[in-house]
Every structure is written in C-alpha cells, then in structure tokens.
C-alpha cells in the first residue's frame, strides 16, 4: 500500500532491515565478504567488480566509521562514489528527503546508502527512487550492515556462529545496533541475552527471540560481551533513564573484573571509555573493536556487490489487514 505508482515497480534488492533477510542471505553475504577479504590481501587492493556503477552515500547524521567504510568499500570495488552530508547541502535549505532523493536519483545511481535520524527514511527512498537502497542506520530502528559485520567479526574470532552465546549490555532501548544484532543472531542460530537497567530495556523485546536480564553477572555465561554505547544525550533533564552515569557505570560498566578469561568483547563505537567500557577492557587482547572496523569494510563491499548482482527474493509484505 505504500508503493508509489509513479515509480517503476521492478523488484530490486535492498538492504533495509535484518528482518528482510533469510539465513541463506546472511550466509551468502558472509561468504562473499570472506572471499573479498582474501582478494584484499593482494598488493593491488582494487577489484573491477562494480566498474561503471554509481554509489551515493546520503548521510543525515554524523558518522565517521560507517561513511568512511561505505566510501572505501565502493572504491575498492571500482564504483564511482559520491557522498552527501545533510549539513552544507540543500537539506539546510529545508528540502524534504523525498526531493533530495529524487534529485540524486536523476543521476541514476545504482545504490543509495542512507543514514537518517528518522525511522522509515530508507523505505521512503526505496519507494520514490529506482535505486537499490542500503540502510546505514535509521533512528533507533535498524543498522543492518553493523549486525552483519559483527557476525563476521565473531565468526573470524571464534570460528562459529551457531550456538554462540552473546550478551549485549547497555542502552538497548535507544539502540538500532542492538535491535539489528539480536535479529541477525537469531537468524544464524546464536543465542542473545540483553543486559541493562530496566528503564533501558524495552517492553516486548523478548519477541525478537532473546533473553533479558537486569543483572550484569549474567554476562559471565556468554562467549561474547557486546557493549553498547551509553548515549549522553539520554541523560538530559527530564530524559534521564538512569539516575546518573556514575551509577550506570557502577552497575553495568564492563570492567576487567566482569570479563571472564576466554570471552571476547565487542563495541560498535564510538566508545565512551570509563562509562560503558573500562579502558583496560577496551585496550585488552579480548577486545575485537578494530577487527569490527576491518570487518565493516569487507562486509559493506559484500553488501554493495550483493544488492547489485543477486536477484531479489520475493519480499514478504506484512499483512496489513487483520
């Protein structure tokens, strides 16, 4: 019902949400990323795969690692890239997302990678343009390439995903990373446990197939401790979900005492050292943070390759009418 009749309805592969993916999709993407990683070990790091294709990065939120990683991913595949940030662009002049998307679409980009503060923005771009759309983060909703790169880094470090036990610690309520990752872990048969203060654990999240605990001690059983960023803007007066950062850190900070030997620690970045993660943990051998960044490059290469070359699956349309 949301489709715009003025846009050709040719089915295209997008990556809007992990919930659109099947287990086979995830396995294929991780396999592709792995073979791309092998190719990147060569002296010349550029592949001709997407020569002549155009990838537009449309970023409405500040981002360092995601934008850099998408740009480099497109370049390594020999695509032409163009990055637009909302500041200093026509968005400053009040242009709507639809009009910005239509303007960029006039250049016939093959892929539009979009990051936007509002939930549903990537879907809108997919409806009004003919490009393949990749969601690089929309509000508190989804960040699917982050989830995929996390799976990739976990498998590289631990050799498997099936049966893995992952504890995700912190501000789940506001985290698109947590939502995407829980869905991705469920797809590959891994177990996830969300740990945080009750005010930052949304009601009903168990429906995604995870367990929930308010006890930091519960992380000791996990193979992976995945630390979420504690967003300081959540501490504004009237918005405070916990009494203070000090109390949050005391109860849920991931310290060396709380990490068991053999566990690996992950963080999507940017880190607040001394808040959600102790610097000694962040700098320890158990931390996979830079592995995650490296995984981001190959996984995003795989995603760009995949949306452009793999035939679209029939996208299940959620039943709207009861």
């Amino acid at each position, binding site marked *: 019902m949301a489709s715009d009749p003025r846009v050709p309805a040719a089915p295209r592969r997008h990556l809007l949400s992990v919930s659109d993916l099947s287990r086979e999709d995830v396995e294929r993407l991780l396999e592709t990323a792995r073979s791309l990683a092998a190719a990147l070990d060569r002296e010349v790091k550029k592949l001709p795969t997407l020569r002549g294709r155009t990838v537009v990065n449309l970023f409405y939120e500040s981002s360092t690692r995601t934008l850099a990683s998408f740009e480099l991913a497109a370049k390594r595949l020999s695509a032409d890239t163009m990055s637009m940030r909302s500041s200093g662009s026509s968005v400053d002049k009040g242009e709507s997302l639809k009009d910005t998307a239509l303007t960029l679409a006039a250049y016939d980009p093959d892929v539009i990678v979009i990051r936007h503060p509002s939930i549903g923005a990537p879907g809108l771009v997919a409806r009004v343009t003919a490009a393949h759309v990749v969601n690089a983060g929309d509000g*508190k909703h989804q960040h699917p390439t982050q989830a995929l790169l996390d799976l990739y880094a976990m498998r590289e470090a631990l050799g498997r995903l099936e049966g893995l036990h992952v504890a995700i610690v912190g501000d789940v309520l506001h985290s698109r990373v947590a*939502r995407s990752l829980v869905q991705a872990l469920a797809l590959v048969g891994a177990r996830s446990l969300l740990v945080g203060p009750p005010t930052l654990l949304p009601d*009903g999240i168990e*429906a995604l197939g995870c367990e929930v605990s308010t006890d930091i001690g519960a992380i000791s059983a996990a193979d992976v401790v995945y630390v979420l960023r504690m967003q300081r803007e959540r501490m504004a007066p009237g918005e405070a979900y916990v009494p203070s950062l000090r109390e949050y850190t005391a109860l849920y900070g991931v310290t060396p005492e709380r990490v068991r030997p053999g566990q690996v620690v992950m963080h999507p970045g940017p880190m607040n050292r001394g808040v959600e993660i102790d610097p000694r943990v962040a700098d320890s051998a158990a931390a996979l943070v830079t592995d995650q960044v490296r995984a981001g490059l190959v996984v995003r290469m795989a995603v760009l390759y995949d949306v452009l070359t793999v035939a679209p699956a029939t996208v299940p349309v959620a039943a709207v009418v009861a």
Partner: protein
Amino acid sequence: MTLFCRNGQGDSLTLEGRVLAPAQGIDECLSITIEDGWIRRVEPSGSTRLLLAPAFVDPHVHLRTPGREDEETLRSGTEAAAAGGYCAILAMPNTDPVVDSASVLGALVERARGDAAIPTGFMAAITKGQRGEELAELADLAANGASAFTDDGRPVASAGMLRRALRYASLTRLPLALHCEEPSLSRGGQVHEGGVSAELGLGPYPSAAESLMVERDLALAGLESHPIHLMHLSAKESVAAVERAVAEGVRVTAEVTPHHLVLTDDAVRSLDPNVKMNPPLRAEEDRATLLDALRRGTIACVATDHAPHARHEKEVPFEEAPFGVTGLETAFAALHTYLVLPGLLPLRTLLERMSAGPARAFGLQEPAVEVGARANLVELDLEAEWEVSEDGFRSLSANSWLVGKTLRGRVVRTIAHGREVFAA
C-alpha cells in the same frame, strides 16, 4: 439548532429496497416516497437489490477549516461525507485559529450555510487556544451554535481545569468530548508499546497513557454529574473503565474508529505513514475488546476521526509523519468488508452504531425511516466491489490506510436533510 448547511429545497424521489432501520425495528422490502424532502409514504415493495438505511452520523471529523484549506474545506469535507453515506457530521475545533470564540464559530457557521453539502455541527474548544489553561467562553459558544466542547488533538492535562470545565459546562447542557492522553506517558510515543515498538525502535505510546486519563475523566464526570463523550478509544483497559463507570451511573458515551476496529500494531511493520495515528493501533486483544464493546453497545458510536493531511506532509519517514488518516469515504465499506462479511459484526449493529448511536450521544435528531420525518437515508449496494484509489476521493487529502485495497459494499446514494447530496 446546532447543525448548519446550504439552504435549498428538499428533493422528491422514491427509493426502493430492503429497508434496515434497527432503531425503528424495520427489516423489510419497502418503497419510500420522499416529497420535498419529507418521507410521505412507506409501502411494501418487491425490490431487494439495494439496502436502504438511516444515513450515518460522524461525531468526529477534522475539516481543517479555517487554516488548512489545502487539506480540506467545508465543501470538500462535507462532499466526502455525503459520498460516505453521512447525513450529519461534527467538526473538530483544533483549527488555526482554534474555534474558541463566538467570532470564529460565527464565521464557520456562515460559511457552512453557503458551502456545507450536509448538516454540519461545530464543536468548540474547552479551553482558550486549547492550551488547557483558561476556560473558553462556553456559554457564549453554546448560544452561538456550538454542538459540544472538546480540546481534541490534545488532552485537558490538568485535572483541576477539566473539573472546572465540567462544572461550568452544566450551564450549556452540552457534553464534553474528551481526547484521553496522559502526556507524560505518551511523550515521544509513536506506536503502541509492545513487541512491535520494541522491534522497530519507535517511541512507545502505552495503553496506560489513554486508560489512566479515561479513569480520571470518568471520576471527574461522576463528581460533577456532567455528560462526557470519550473519543477514539483504543485500549482494552479503557473499555473496562467505561463499563465500571456506566455501572456506577456516570453519563458517558464512547466512540471507536474503523482503523482501531480493523487493524493492529502489526500493520506498523510496513512503516507506512498512513497507519500512523493518535491514539496508535494497538494489540489484537485491544482490537477484539473494542469490537466486542461496539457489539454490546458499551461503545455506541463509530467515528472516523477523519484527519486529512497534505500529501507532502505524509510523504516523509514514518517517524516524522503527522498523526491521522482519512476515513469518511471508506468507513462503511471497510467495516462491512472486514467485520460484517466475516461474521464478526451484525450488519444491523453496524448501521445502528454509525447512525442512531452517535446522534443520541450528541442529542441530534436520529435519522429515522418513518412517515413525516425529514429524509436522512443511505442507499447501499452490498455486493459492489471497488478498489480504493488515491484519485477517487472527494476529500482534498488521500492519506487513507485503505488505498489499493478492494472493498465490498458501496454507498450509492445519500439523502441528507431531505436532499439528494450524493448519487454514484
């Protein structure tokens, strides 16, 4: 007199078909002769092709006038209502400026006398500017034709202010129509709090944000013995509260929208801005409870909460879209298709809740099939299948959750206040 429309002669015509008028206990094939707008003869007939019923009354419509005539005007909104089978509607005062003074109300009444295709009533604000701080001039507004009072679009947040309004409104005998929402619980809320909000990351708007306010408002209405009408109920807890209050003798009526009767928050997974409304779509249990309350009469009114929005304002990411959907032109067909045909709601109950129920709640003349009554009739083709399309609306806005859907049952003619205002 609290309804206003274009002046003009009543029409003369004869309608035939199966007449279903639940309030009059009629269910038989009849021919109804209308002369100069009045029902003059009702006689047996053999025709069964079409269904004739008392026309509908919508107690909750946003006509967006004054201020947003690009989204709806008195003319377009009442023509949309006529096409939906309505013979009377009540318009909300959350316009720009707000209908909170006799001068704004007077200008609307004047315009309705020129533009309104069907009788239209205007609710006036409870508080000045709907800010919840000072009472509007309720007595003056009533004297100038207000049909009820409401701050719809927002709650009267202060309990003390609502109590004073209830007490003062007794001067007017007009009910207060209340939008129940506790703002500290709904703040930032976009969709029902539950599995879907958790999964999508959309701001949660819990059922308690409504039901807590419903409980408060019922307590105050009981305290002041003044009638209230609860708008667009969405949560099962609210229904339970209304049932308790009715048992205690509180004078309360309630309405429910087609979208809350048909959809659940599961529909939000599409992130289509046309399933974003306030209150939000809730869980299946809530939907079932609302439907049951409508069947039993605890909720006696179907109201569309027709809320037109400019296309460009809804063509944005879900999170940025304004709340509200249109409904005047699809209400009957949607409820017939999704509730009557599957056997979930008797047709006669639907017809009663769309006509006599809302008329009674607001003290309006009930549309009736009887000799000597002004003709207010809707002719329905229950077999007709039609696809809802963006181009097919008389409303100036097309933000309907039904676009693209095929519905069964169609309004083919509407007689409002003795005049044929719509014929397919």
